[in-house]
């Protein structure tokens, strides 16, 4: 950064050598400005026309020389689920490919120049496909027919596979990007849907066709003749053939009710307008993209009966094509189908509704309609684009608020619990494309709240404004994904914000001091810094000339961090640079500070929801810690008090506890009478030996494994023989039931090995 004004060697906050009285009057003027917003003395200068910008944004004068997320290419053919890629990402891929070929260094350098040229074109507002902009940029770079650049770019171009519309960050971006992702998803859905409907239609018509071929009409001489063809049919007597075939053909025709059902299914499937085949007749396909909620809601309501009919037809057709439709069983079931609308799973095959709104037009009754449509559990995806974060207060009088509408909207939507809510600055959308995809894939409603940064009154490009809004917590990025889990910890994330743990992100500002030495300082980027980008807020700032800088000028973050009562003793100020990159200091009026405080408090709430500095968790932790400390203290005290006899008792107690613990996991063996015969059923290998011996005594259970059904249904001899012949030795004969059975002594001996 270039330095023109004098700068104290030891930082910007050191008081200058001034007389007490002058200092006091300057301070009074600053306090007065801070409280009233009017510049009363010569010591304060207006900032209008100074072309200032926040000091941290000084390095970003020329975005076209930077490689960043923009412009973005809306991929014509989504690759690996990604619907958009940054230009630099695509160029990086090309560079990787080029690294493998000859002259890689030269081609790489030229390719980077081309990237910059395309970026410049896009920043100038040129739009079109990447291939078109590539050609345009290449034409501008190539100086002559023998220029090496021509060769480099030609070879790089041959490797380029991705193509699609190139878009820079701006007002058009949010709608185009999200609509593009939505369209890609609907297309995939449509292809799967059509393939299934076509398959079902074909199978259904095959059933009807097979029935026709066997019917008297199908076996008529005319039909037979037609199916053979003119030339070949000359020598065949079709009348005879028809008589013969009619006689021998089986007389089973489709029941009339089934034929009617098949015909109804076919007409329902083929006349559907939800996702018709391209070029199919029967009217225009239905549109699913809307610019207001009322129209989307009306369309949904109007189409619901048709959607129910189609979903029902698909479900019945699946059963019919598998020959499983049973009128007795299924007729009553399908009579009730869709009586309560369709559930999310049934709707999943249908297209989602897409509504694109601008926050500036979001007045009643549209606002109420929006909440209605979101909370109805419909598969509707709504984009609310905010171009301007400044909203005039209805009380007038110059009051305004920053980002209030989007906070209200997302807050209400998250309160519904089942709406996917995604908020992001346009600058972050490329990074967030995974989340955009998952929000579009979500089975219920989704709300996208996106800030474009296009309406600010400033010389800065919309990308910087959008990025600064996110950086300064004026428009934080977050995602609420109801499908991710049951609690806030798994559903809500603010992790994508810069330094999400902190109140404000802190960055290092390097500058040249008055001794031409490099100095640097950590600076927080607050809401006030963000507002300093916008000329409409100039009246809320006053430049303090270099000579009047003193210790009472503090940064906004420092001012917000400390609560002062009574007369302010310190004045909040921001560091800015002018058009020549000279560091300047503006003091800020109270109104902006109040807004900054509200913004920070909102951010604190989001942080708590996102699990950062959560007050409930911290309170619980403190309680637990206290309880734990108390227990530890009590234990220490009781140990100190412990006398010897107690110690003895203690040693015996844990021993018995260990025994109990050891005994517990032992498998619970069922109590068995050792005299009773039994079979280890789970180990039986179904070899039939025992059941063939006596199927009243031995039987199989539900799993075809043997058990003793009735020990008295046979002799002890049979029991012993069964045990001996059992292949896996799982029969245990027990003791004889009848003491009068002959030969018992020998049998008991034979039974011994199996007990």
């Amino acid at each position, binding site marked *: 950064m270039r330095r023109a004004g004098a700068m104290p060697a030891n930082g910007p906050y050191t008081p200058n050598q001034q007389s007490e009285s002058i200092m006091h009057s300057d301070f009074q003027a600053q306090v007065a400005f801070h409280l009233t917003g009017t510049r009363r003395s010569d010591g304060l200068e207006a900032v209008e026309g100074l072309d200032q910008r926040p000091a941290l944004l000084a390095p970003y004068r020329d975005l076209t020389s930077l490689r960043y997320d923009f412009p973005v290419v809306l991929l014509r053919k989504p690759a690996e689920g990604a619907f958009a890629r940054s230009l630099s990402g695509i160029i990086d891929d090309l560079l990787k490919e080029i690294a493998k070929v000859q002259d890689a260094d030269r081609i790489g350098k030229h390719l980077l120049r081309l990237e910059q040229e395309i970026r410049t074109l896009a920043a100038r507002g040129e739009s079109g496909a990447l291939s078109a902009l590539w050609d345009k940029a290449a034409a501008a770079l190539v100086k002559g027919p023998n220029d090496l650049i021509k060769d480099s770019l030609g070879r790089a171009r041959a490797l380029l596979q991705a193509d699609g519309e190139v878009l820079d960050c701006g007002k058009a971006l949010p709608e185009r990007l999200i609509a593009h992702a939505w369209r890609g998803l609907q297309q995939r859905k449509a292809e799967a849907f059509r393939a299934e409907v076509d398959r079902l239609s*074909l199978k259904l018509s095959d059933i009807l066709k097979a029935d026709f071929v066997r019917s008297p009409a199908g076996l008529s001489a005319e039909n037979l003749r037609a199916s053979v063809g003119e030339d070949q049919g000359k020598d065949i007597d079709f009348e005879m053939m028809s008589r013969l075939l009619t006689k021998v053909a089986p007389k089973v025709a489709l029941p009339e009710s089934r034929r009617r059902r098949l015909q109804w299914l076919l007409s329902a499937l083929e006349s559907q307008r939800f996702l018709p085949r391209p070029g199919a007749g029967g009217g225009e396909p239905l549109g699913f993209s809307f610019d207001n909620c009322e129209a989307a809601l009306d369309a949904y309501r109007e189409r619901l009966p048709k959607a129910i009919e189609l979903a029902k037809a698909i479900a019945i057709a699946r059963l019919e094509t598998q020959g499983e439709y049973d009128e007795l069983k299924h007729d009553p079931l399908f009579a009730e189908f869709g009586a309560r609308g369709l559930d999310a799973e049934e709707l999943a095959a249908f297209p989602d509704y897409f509504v694109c709104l601008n926050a500036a037009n979001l007045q009643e009754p549209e606002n109420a309609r929006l909440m209605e449509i979101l909370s109805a559990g419909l598969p509707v995806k709504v984009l609310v684009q905010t171009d301007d974060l400044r909203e005039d207060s209805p009380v007038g009088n110059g009051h305004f608020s920053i980002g209030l509408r989007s906070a209200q909207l997302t807050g209400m939507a998250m309160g519904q619990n089942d709406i996917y809510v995604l908020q992001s600055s346009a600058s972050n959308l490329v990074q967030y494309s995974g989340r955009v995809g998952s929000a579009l894939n979500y089975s219920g409603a989704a709300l996208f709240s996106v800030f474009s940064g296009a309406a600010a009154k400033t010389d800065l490009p919309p990308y910087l404004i959008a990025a600064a809004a996110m950086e300064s917590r004026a428009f934080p990025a977050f995602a609420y994904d109801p499908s991710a889990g049951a609690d806030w910890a798994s559903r809500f994330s603010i992790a994508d914000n810069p330094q999400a743990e902190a109140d404000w992100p802190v960055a290092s500002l390097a500058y040249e001091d008055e001794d031409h030495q490099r100095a640097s300082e950590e600076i927080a980027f607050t809401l006030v810094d963000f507002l300093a980008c916008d000329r409409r807020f100039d009246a809320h700032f006053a430049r303090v000339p270099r000579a009047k800088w003193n210790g009472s000028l503090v940064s906004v973050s420092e001012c917000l961090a400390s609560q002062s009562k009574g007369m302010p003793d310190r004045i909040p100020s921001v560091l800015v640079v002018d058009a020549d990159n000279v560091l300047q200091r503006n003091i800020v009026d109270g109104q902006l500070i109040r807004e900054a405080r509200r913004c920070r408090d909102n951010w604190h709430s989001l942080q708590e929801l996102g699990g950062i500095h959560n007050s409930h968790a911290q309170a619980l932790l403190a309680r637990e810690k206290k309880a734990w400390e108390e227990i530890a203290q009590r234990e220490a005290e009781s140990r100190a008090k412990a006398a010897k006899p107690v110690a003895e008792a203690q040693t015996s107690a844990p021993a018995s506890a260990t025994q109990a613990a050891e005994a517990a996991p032992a498998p619970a063996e069922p109590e068995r009478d050792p005299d009773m015969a039994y079979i280890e059923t789970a180990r039986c290998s*179904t070899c039939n030996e025992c059941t063939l011996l006596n199927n009243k005594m031995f039987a199989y259970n539900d799993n075809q494994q043997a058990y003793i059904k009735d020990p008295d249904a046979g002799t002890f001899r049979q029991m012993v023989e069964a045990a001996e012949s059992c292949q896996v030795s799982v029969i245990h004969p027990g003791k004889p039931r009848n003491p009068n059975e002959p030969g018992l002594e020998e049998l008991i001996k034979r039974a011994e090995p199996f007990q």
Partner: protein
Amino acid sequence: MNMAAHECLLQLHDEHFKLEDYQSGVPRWCTGCGDSAILAAVQRLCRDEGLRPEKTVFVSGIGCSSRFPHYMKTYGFHGIHGRALPIAEGVKMARPDLHVFVNTGDGDCCSIGAAHWIHAIRYNMNITMFLHDNQIYGLTKKQASPTSPRGTKSNTTPRGSYLEALNPLTVTLGVQNVSFVAQAADWIPETLFDIVKAAYHHKGLSFVRIIQRCPEWLPDAFDPWMHDPKRVLMLTHENGIKLSSGLAGVYTNQEQHDPSNMNRAREIASCIDPIPVGILYRNEEVPRYEDLRRSKTLRTTEYIRAGLESEFDKVTVWPEESQEQQAA
């Protein structure tokens, strides 16, 4: 994704089957035959999984094991010697909606059908295959089979067989595209069922070798392993099978084996004593032939007609053209 309400209702209305619904006829296997244990386990699987008999096919070749389809009240195909697998593959290709099982024996699969066995592994179609390995030709009354241990005395080898037995596990694990290999023993029915179940759920060719006792022709061949649980190496893993507490108490010789570890699987497969029991290898990622070859094009009448026309055109002799040629 959850099930739609109407799908739940349809499932509620589905028929539920009992084990008896899958039983057909009285098996003609000898009493004490290990095949009965396999039949019981498979019938239990059908009942537990609610496999609809009209959607289930058992295909077999020739041998004791291959009588299996007769005893299942499902569709079945008692094929010719060694050709169970090609028939099953044809069934699966034409009707991918069917559950296809193959029952084959050591003679059927490892001798006359060995070529089909190798290529079935390579094709990896979604079929569950049970190799009933009793190490002997039983139906033809005792001839040595490829898996008979060296020294087996039989009608064809009265002085004892001369060759080392073929190891079906190592052979299968050596073929490209192998995706599921397990070994079970008929005398441990609980594990047999667990393995049969895992094999059924695997998407691809699941090869299960079941060591099966033949009480008639090799009555004591497996007694040393059957009576000494230490000579059975139980392969357990959270991705494989888990033993019940009762079984774990009996079979204490256990190894934690991750079925994705091919190298260890090959080592274990080479082990003859103790007999490994469990899932040796499983890989769901191997592509299935029916998926690779399945055409997305709907076979409409027009499509079939156009295909036939173009084929016929290749060999059609057009009278006008031939006359013109003759004239020339």
